Each structure stands twice: as C-alpha cells, then as structure tokens.
C-alpha cells in the first residue's frame, strides 16, 4: 500500500474544503432553520469575486480581499433580507423555492459575466505562488511511502483547522456564542429574553458566508473555477451534513472529513478490474446521502429527527 500516505493527505485536503463549506452551511441552518439551496453558489460567487478582484490592475491585496468581503455582504443581504427572512414565516416550502431561484440566478449572472468555461485562479501574492500557475510540491516521507503536498494544500489543511477551532471556541465559550446557541435551540425563549434575533442571524450567516467564500477561493486555487461548481458543492455540503447530523456544526465538520476519506479511498484503492473510475467520485456523495437517509436520518451525531 505505497499509495496510502498520499490517499490520506488527499482525503484530508478534500475533507478540509468540504468542512469549510459545510460549516458555513450548518451555521446558517442552525439560526435560520432553513435549508439554503444557494449555499454552494455563494461559494462560487466568492471565488469569482476574487477572480474579478485580482483582474483589477494595481489593486493592493488588502483591497482585493475587501472587495470579496463587500461582495459577500451584498450577497448575504440579498439572501437574508430579500430571499429568506420575508418568506420563511409563511411556509417552510417558500424559502426552498426562493433559494433555488437565487442559486440559478447567481449561476446565470456569473456565467453571463465570466463565461461558462473553466477559469483558473492565480493570485500573485498567494504564498507558494509560482509563475507557472500551480504551486511547488513538497516531498513528504521517503522511499516507498512517497507523498506530495503543495504549499496551497498545507494552507488548506491548517487554515481549515484554525477556522473550525475558532468557530468552535466562539460558539462554545463566549457570550456571543451562548446567544447564538440559545437562538438556535429555543428561538422564542431567546427573543423574549431580549436577544436581537435579526442581528444575530445577520452576524452568523455573514460569518458563515465569508468562510464559504474562503472555501471557494481555496477550491479555485487547488483546482479551478466554473459557474456550475456551486451545485456540486451544495450537494457535497448536504451529504456532509446528513452524514454528520443536521443542526450540529460539529456533525457537519465530522461528516465533511468522513466524506473526503470515503471519496478518496473508494476511488484510490486499486482492486484490479473492479476499481472505480475517478468520475464516480461525486456519485459517492449522493449515495452517502441516500444510505444515511435510509439507515440513520438523524446523522451520526444528530439527535432524533424533528417531525413536522
């Protein structure tokens, strides 16, 4: 099994990207109680905002980042104040349909402005950036257990870890986190005790969307960008969340890493003629959703399913 270290590293990278996407999604779901079908598309918008920002000549890196953040603030405003909050109180079906519409509108807008073709994201100030496009790979281990990792991939793994731990610390042990948890578990009681529901929702969803945009940029650096990538990542985030358990941010993170491992090992392990071609990677996420819904709908860490 000389391929094992490389498979482990690849699983960690994939898992980190999924975890960032799914954490943003789970944060929004906890406070809103609404499934956001446009979540993957927010990731795509964040990455394309970066693509647009680096195309502006002479813009300082900090301003490029500011531009991405500004874009995400606008998108969050559209998502919350137009698409979700005014509709959610009438029927749970309405935000479903309206976030689907938002997703399609975002995809069409990006495709019209940037084209439908694959684009690569080359950020000149990114650590480890080289003029040839990719970043240099570093050899890990030696001999039979050769494994490669690029600087971008190291950044992916560790920044994901840092962000997730940060979110966990804020949620778990600050007064802001306590307010968020109160609102998520008992919205009416929390509001009657004077918590400003809309402000908290805004804050949490914005943070979630910024993490998501960061994940989108990382995906752009690691692979490439396409307007249709949103849909694939939306389903991956769903799969991760269903694997881990709805409504629990930790479950989502655990589910993401598990999904990364499942995908990479299912494709990577060589079993002769029964090996699966790489194209089936995505099919695993979908099968995971179906199997989990069938066997354990509340997810690995989830509590009992809420009934309607």
């Amino acid at each position: 099994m000389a391929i094992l270290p490389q498979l482990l590293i690849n699983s960690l990278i994939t898992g980190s990207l999924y975890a960032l996407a799914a954490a943003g999604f789970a944060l929004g779901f906890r406070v809103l109680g609404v499934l956001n079908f446009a979540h993957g598309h927010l990731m795509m918008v964040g990455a394309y905002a970066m693509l647009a920002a680096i195309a502006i000549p002479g813009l300082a890196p900090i301003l490029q980042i500011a531009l991405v953040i500004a874009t995400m603030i606008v998108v969050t405003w559209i998502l919350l104040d137009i698409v979700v909050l005014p509709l959610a109180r009438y029927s749970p079906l309405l935000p479903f349909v309206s976030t689907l519409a938002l997703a399609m509108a975002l995809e069409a807008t990006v495709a019209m402005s940037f084209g439908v073709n694959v684009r690569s994201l080359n950020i000149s100030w990114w650590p480890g950036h080289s003029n040839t496009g990719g970043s240099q790979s570093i050899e890990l281990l030696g001999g039979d257990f050769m494994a490669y990792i690029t600087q971008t991939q190291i950044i992916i793994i560790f920044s994901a870890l840092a962000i997730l731990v940060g979110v966990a610390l804020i949620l778990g042990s600050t007064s802001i986190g306590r307010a968020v948890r109160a609102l998520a578990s008992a919205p009416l009681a929390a509001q009657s005790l004077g918590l400003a529901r809309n402000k908290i929702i805004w804050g949490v969803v914005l943070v979630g969307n910024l993490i998501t945009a960061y994940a989108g940029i990382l995906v752009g650096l690691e692979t490439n960008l396409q307007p249709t990538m949103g849909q694939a990542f939306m389903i991956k985030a769903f799969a991760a969340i269903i694997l881990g358990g709805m409504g629990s941010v930790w479950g989502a993170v655990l589910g993401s890493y598990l999904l990364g491992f499942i995908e990479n090992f299912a494709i990577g392990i060589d079993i002769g003629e029964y090996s699966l071609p790489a194209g089936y990677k995505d099919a695993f996420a979908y099968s995971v959703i179906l199997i989990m819904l069938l066997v354990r709908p509340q997810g690995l860490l989830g509590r009992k399913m809420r009934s309607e």
Partner: protein
Amino acid sequence: MPYFIHIATVLCIYAILAQSLNVILGLGRALNLAHVASFALGAYSMALWASPTNSGIVIPMLISIGVCGTFSLILGWISLRLTSDYFAIGTLAFAALISALLINWRSFTNGVLGIPGIPRPTIFGYDTNNEVFFLILCAAVSLIIQILIWLVFRSGFARQLRAVGERPTSAAAMGIDRRAVLSAAFALSSCAAGIAGVLFAMLLSYIDPSSFMLAEMIVLFTMVVVGRPGSFWGCLGAVLVVVLIPEALRFLKVPYCLDPLPSCFEPIASSVLGQVRQLLNALMLFAVVWLGRRQLFPKERIC
C-alpha cells in the same frame, strides 16, 4: 414556419412534464427534485433500448413507463420516510445520482457525448420525420395525458392527495395513508415524465446528460409555481408563459450584457441565450413566490 412547429412541439412536451409535476408539487405539496430524473430515464430508455430495434412508439413508451415506474417506487420507498427538508434533499440526491450515472457510465450511456441517431416512428403510414406529423403525434400524446391527469384532478384520489399535502395532521386523523397516496402520485407523475422523455428524445434525435440538469428542474418548478400549485389550467397557462417569454427574447433588441456597450443592444446571441433564459426563469420564479407568499403554500391551521 419550422420554428413555430418546433416551439409548438416543445410546448406539448413541457405541458406533460409540468402537469405531472403539478400532481406531486401542487396537490401533494412534496418538493420532488427528482422529477427531471424520470424525464431523463424516459429519454434514455428510448435511446438505449428502443432506438436500436427501431420499434415504433408503443414499445418504447411501455419500456419507459416500466423503467420510470420502478424508479418512482424506489424513490418513494426511500424518500417518503422523510418529511420536508429531508425529503427535498433525498430527492435531490436521487436526481444527482442519476445524472452522475448518465455522465460516468460511459460504456452504457456514452457519457457526456450523448446518444445520437434516435429514430422517429412511422404511425399508421405517416412518417413522423415530417415535423408536422411529429407535432400531431406529440399533441395527441400530450392531450391523452392531460385528459388522464384532468380526470385524476377531479377524482377522490386528488382530494386525498390535497389533504395529505395541505393538512397532513387532519389527513392522518382521517385514516389517509400518506406514504401510499404519495407513492401512487409519484408513480403517476414519474411515468408521465418518462413518456415526455420518449417524445423529447425523438424530437431532438440526440440526447446528452446536459438536458437533464437541475436547471431544467427549476424551469418545471417555475411552471408549476407560476400557474399556482394545484391548479390544472393555471399550470397549462404557465407553460405557455414560461416557454414563450424567453423565445420572444430572440427577436427583441434588449441590453443583455452587464456593461452597456452599444454592441449589446442586439438580439441576444445564441451563446448566452441559455443563461439569459435561466436568469429570467429564476427572477420569474422568485417574483411569483414573493408576490404570492401568503397564498402559495398556506400553513396548516388546526382550528
């Protein structure tokens, strides 16, 4: 003229698709995102089993009804254990799984390259390679299915379905089996979508997975929601609106680029027509949902 015949044929096919989704989404209030997968299965069963044998139209339709019926039973068996959020995700996973299979199972479906050369049948001596005869065929099939669905809409079954969708608690108290009723509705709408798929494959004589993506699902959603979910005639009217408005764009001079250069004030180039249509559909869907937020999906009240 061939253009208008083509549009009329497309209208007939969309009428079947939207009306069959209307049974599930409109009456049953079940957010079935796998409807387009039934459409795909119908089209692919036509392309894979029926076209090599060139076996007319009845056999392909029976095959696709068989395939879609089986699919709907599996779909119903898994997804109907779930409610609202989970149900939608389950059906979405199904749809994505089917489209992943269509793309990746190259030896069977020819992947993204698609399947060319799907023949059209000769019926009662009329060769439907003639567009007019093909339109008549589609209109006839569509009419039969519309009449069947209209009969369903007037039946006690539709009342049970409405009860399950709008007043689940009361329906359960009346002894209506949610899963049985919705499974039957699934089977009905899935088979109708499969027949639409057969006609679609014959219309284009070439199919590939890109015709059966989530974006297509949004178009169908728009049709059902614009026509008011659960309204038979509303749905047919909405099919007209949703198909014809983007078609009108071909002839209008409108600014369609984000930067208003003079070159953009031209009939929309076919390269961005798809995206313009998608954006328009999304905006239309959102506008209808926003304006009808009080009436579209009323909450269950027990009083």
